[in-house]
């Protein structure tokens, strides 16, 4: 047991989780205190001792599922499955009518990727029944069937299983099933039909069940992959960076969504930290009135001087972001963050450019939610001048003509972009001039620093005029930068 635990922890560390020796010892102690037969308890115990941040939970979960795959289901499959069928009948008589037939057939083919005895129609029926009844055993049975039938798994292929999952789900057409069951429920209501509220609730309930089905399929695929290739090999091929280390430029759609969700708490955290820093940074000037008032109790001797609360000015921020195709996802992400913490700055103005530049501050002001605002920026901002390829030189020149006078010594200028200028003129003098006017000029570059200056990247030319050029590819780097900014 301790060996498996050791391997498990090594894999967690490889996935980037910070696990100290103390925590390892705790986990080992915990394991000796609990009943290993209870898988959920076992999992909770490891999680409580090893994972100290909610953000790391999904990474933990996926490694756990690989190393401690649910063997109980496995033994059921291999043995004669009559027993489990009967259980099914007792558990849920309603579902059994439709499910039992499928299950009997299913039993024979539950081996490794064997041929299927169930027809596609039977499977579809069973799936519907499983969604309707929300029964866990039935869900697992459907998942097994579906994976045997549709995933087309080949032994020994070094893949993470995403492809199998996609193939299975495409064939199951879960959305179609959801609509169908929903329609049935609507019919069941008779003449009156469903009110908006009822329909919404029913839809969400079915949505949750469909989600459960997807997870069951995923678990089934994972289980077979572990059997095929062993835990360590599989863990290696499904290893993903932690949310704070995901490269924003190359984030998948799902990763992007989870990053955006992470932004909410992050900005709250930053806001708290920044106010705290501002409040505790230093004392304000002497508060004469209060000092005299307090000196009365010591006979007019000012023993206990009072100070006014410090009131340091909040910085103004000007954000200039490249939103051309090559860095769009990064710019969108950073604009999100800038607006999330805008309460910490007295004024935030934002500009976007491709080869022309436009101010978009008002778009953020009118929109409730940054996603809307970004949508509108992409459609309404006037950022194309000639051909829609980045031209930093022209954009900076235009910026200088129109807005340079508004940059003053309280302003911090943030420029976001990869400085890939398509070999146009750089006009680096604009940046030099901005630096003379502004408090700070920072350049955030979403490219790894080893790429800087290669090809048409001219970040070096601009960089000499900036206070610093920072590589910001991940949430962690961004957090660090913003923390230092204010």
């Amino acid at each position, binding site marked *: 047991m301790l060996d498996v635990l050791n391997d498990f922890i090594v894999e967690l560390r490889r996935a980037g989780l910070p696990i100290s020796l103390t925590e390892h010892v705790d986990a080992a102690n915990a394991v000796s205190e609990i009943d290993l037969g209870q898988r959920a308890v076992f999992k909770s115990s490891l999680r409580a001792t090893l994972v*100290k941040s909610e953000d790391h939970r999904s990474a933990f979960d996926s490694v756990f599922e690989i190393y401690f795959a649910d063997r109980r289901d496995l033994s059921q499959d291999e043995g004669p499955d009559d027993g489990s069928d009967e259980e099914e009948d007792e558990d849920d008589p309603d579902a059994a009518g439709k499910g039992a037939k499928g299950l009997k057939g299913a039993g024979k083919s539950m081996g490794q990727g064997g041929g299927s005895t169930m027809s596609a129609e039977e499977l579809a029926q069973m799936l519907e029944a499983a969604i309707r009844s929300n029964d866990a055993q039935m869900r697992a049975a459907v998942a097994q069937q579906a994976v045997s039938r549709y995933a087309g798994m080949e032994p020994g292929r070094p893949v993470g299983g995403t492809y199998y999952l996609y193939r299975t789900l495409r064939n199951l057409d879960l959305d179609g099933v959801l609509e169908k069951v929903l329609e049935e429920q609507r019919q069941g209501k008779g003449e009156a039909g469903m009110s908006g*509220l009822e329909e919404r609730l029913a839809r969400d309930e079915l949505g949750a069940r469909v989600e459960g089905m997807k997870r069951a399929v995923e678990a089934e695929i994972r289980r077979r992959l572990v059997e095929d290739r062993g835990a360590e090999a599989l863990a290696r091929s499904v290893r993903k960076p932690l949310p704070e280390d995901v490269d924003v430029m190359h984030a998948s759609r799902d990763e992007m969504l989870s990053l955006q969700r992470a932004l909410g708490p992050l900005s709250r955290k930053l806001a*708290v930290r920044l106010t705290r820093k501002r409040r505790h940074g230093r004392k304000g000037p002497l508060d004469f009135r209060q000092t005299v008032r307090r000196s009365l109790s010591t006979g007019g001797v000012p023993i206990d001087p009072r100070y006014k609360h410090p009131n340091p000015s909040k910085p103004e921020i000007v954000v200039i972001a490249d939103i051309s195709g090559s860095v769009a996802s990064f710019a969108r992400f950073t604009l999100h963050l800038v607006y999330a913490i805008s309460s910490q700055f007295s004024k935030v103005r934002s500009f976007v450019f491709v080869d022309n530049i436009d101010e978009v501050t008002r778009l953020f002001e009118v929109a409730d939610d940054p996603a809307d605002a970004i949508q509108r920026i992409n459609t309404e901002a006037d950022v194309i001048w000639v051909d829609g390829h980045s031209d930093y030189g022209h954009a900076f020149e235009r910026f200088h003509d129109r807005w340079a006078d508004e940059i003053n010594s309280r302003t911090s200028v943030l420029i976001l972009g990869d400085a890939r200028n398509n070999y146009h003129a750089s006009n680096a003098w604009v940046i030099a001039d901005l630096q003379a006017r502004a408090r700070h000029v920072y350049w955030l570059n979403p490219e790894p620093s080893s790429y800087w200056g290669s090809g048409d990247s001219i970040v070096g030319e601009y960089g000499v005029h900036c206070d610093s050029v920072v590589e910001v590819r991940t949430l962690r780097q961004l957090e660090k930068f913003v923390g230092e900014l204010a």
Partner: protein
Amino acid sequence: MNDITAPRFSSPDEVAARLDEVDYLSDEAIAATVFLADRLQKPILVEGPAGTGKTQLAKSVAELTGARLIRLQCYEGLDESKALYEWNYRKQLLRIQAGQGTAADRDWAELEEDIFDEDFLLTRPLLEAIRAKDPVVLLIDEVDRVELETEALMLEILSEYQVSIPELGTVTAEQIPMVFLTSNNTRELSEALKRRCLFLHVGYPDVERERLIVERRVPGISGELALQIAQIVRTIRSMELRKHPSVSETIDWARTLVVLGKGEIDEKDAADTLHILLKYQSDIERARHELLGTKPASRT
């Protein structure tokens, strides 16, 4: 630690069952973590959104073990003299003055020993928990509110269950109390603190558990209404809102509906009472719009 406290629970299931007796509905993670905290004698760091029963967990554990709850509410600027101990200097002064007339021959060393005695020590929650003879549960609430430096004050207590007082020496716990720390995650806690604790995230419950909680906490509610409430709350939590309804707000809402004598929620009831569940006007309007399919700006 000469007197090791006997284990309080025999299995996670027992934890769950006994929490259930005091009307706290746990889940597997909660029961397993509380069980381990008792066995491994480690504190639990409970994290999660506001209003999901983090503080209540500590109270319930205190109730079911028959222990006294000692609570330290953290805030910015909390320091040693508020959290650990303080010398009662007024009393010390009095002692010195009282001694001056009568025993002029007493030398200073003796007096010093005298005034740095336990009689002159004001115990604050952390020290009190350590010195308690009766069983106690220590709750350090909203630990993320104190500064990083103040956190370090707690480290000795959390790992060794002892407090070092320079003038007195080390005070060791008579018995190991159960310790709960809660955090709303407004800042990252230090690695040192996290390492000493078991971690428990308490999130929003799923529909089934929320229904049970509502049924338990709101007497006289029908099962159907409780289910409907839980489902509506789940739907609202899936929306993009400034603040999602907490479990305590769900309970308030359920109570309101019961007082109003509703057997089930129709669209009008939902629209009229949403303000109990949500606290921002923009959230209320968005939820109303999404739940009922009405236009958000249809105010007349």
